[in-house]
């Protein structure tokens, strides 16, 4: 399978293209949206894009189990990041009454 055929029928290239586009959309969400929650969701999207690429490579290398173990660690880190990140957003909202990242550019009160 080469080129467009691989993209349409789930070759390695197809998965990598999906991962790249997902990463680009996540990056656009972080750069374009001002709400901190939307930026956080963009970061989660980018993390997912990396996971898709990782597991796609693992499947085309004969079903490597190490990749799934790595994926396990990645989602453990993602869960920590989600808990602490959302706690920070709530803390910020209590102090400033806003979740707009433009309005919270300074750490000083």
């Amino acid at each position, binding site marked *: *399978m080469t080129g467009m055929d*691989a993209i*349409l029928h*789930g*070759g*390695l290239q*197809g998965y*990598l293209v*999906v991962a*790249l*586009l*997902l*990463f*680009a*959309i996540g*990056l*656009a*969400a972080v*750069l*374009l*949206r001002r709400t901190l*929650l*939307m930026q*956080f*969701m963009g970061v*989660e*999207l980018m993390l*997912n894009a990396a*996971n*898709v690429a990782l*597991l*796609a*490579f693992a*499947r*085309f*290398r004969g*079903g490597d*189990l*190490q990749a*799934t*173990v790595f*994926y*396990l*660690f990645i*989602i453990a880190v*993602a*869960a*920590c*990041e*989600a*808990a*602490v990140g*959302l*706690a920070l957003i*709530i*803390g910020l*909202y*209590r102090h400033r009454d806003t979740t*707009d990242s*433009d309005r919270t550019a300074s750490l000083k009160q």
Partner: protein
Amino acid sequence: MFLAFALITLLGALGMLLQKNIIVAGLFMVAAFFGVAGLFVLLANPVAAALQLIVYSGAIMVLVLFVIMMLSSHEEEAAEVGHPIQRWLSVLLALALAAGGVTLVLASKGVRQLAERGAAMPPAVTLQGVGATLFEGHVLGFEVAGLMLLAAMVGAVALTKRNL
């Protein structure tokens, strides 16, 4: 099948990016996560698909939606100062990254060779195999991950509690 799940993933992500209401954006995000779980099933990895559904679509999105409900405004606030140049630059950057990456992937000889060599479907990943690999080679990492989750939990409580 692949195309269906890829479209669910990308359209969900695109809907999230363009949606003004944060709650609806969060639900679009759940759709994207479901699409990714479907892709994992197609990659002969039902373990990762189950984890994706449980941790992302279950735990993390519930947490995000819960926080969204706690905040009073669900629409994006009006911009204090517009940054038109930076916004166009970031659109350009994301598009350039996507286009450049796709071109590279399609042109790469190594990726094509890997795709041809591994074209045969490997046996599906089993929970037993993952568990054996995890505890044979990564016991320390596993323990550290548990410690890190505990630290994050304590940190989240400490950050949100008004007076400790």
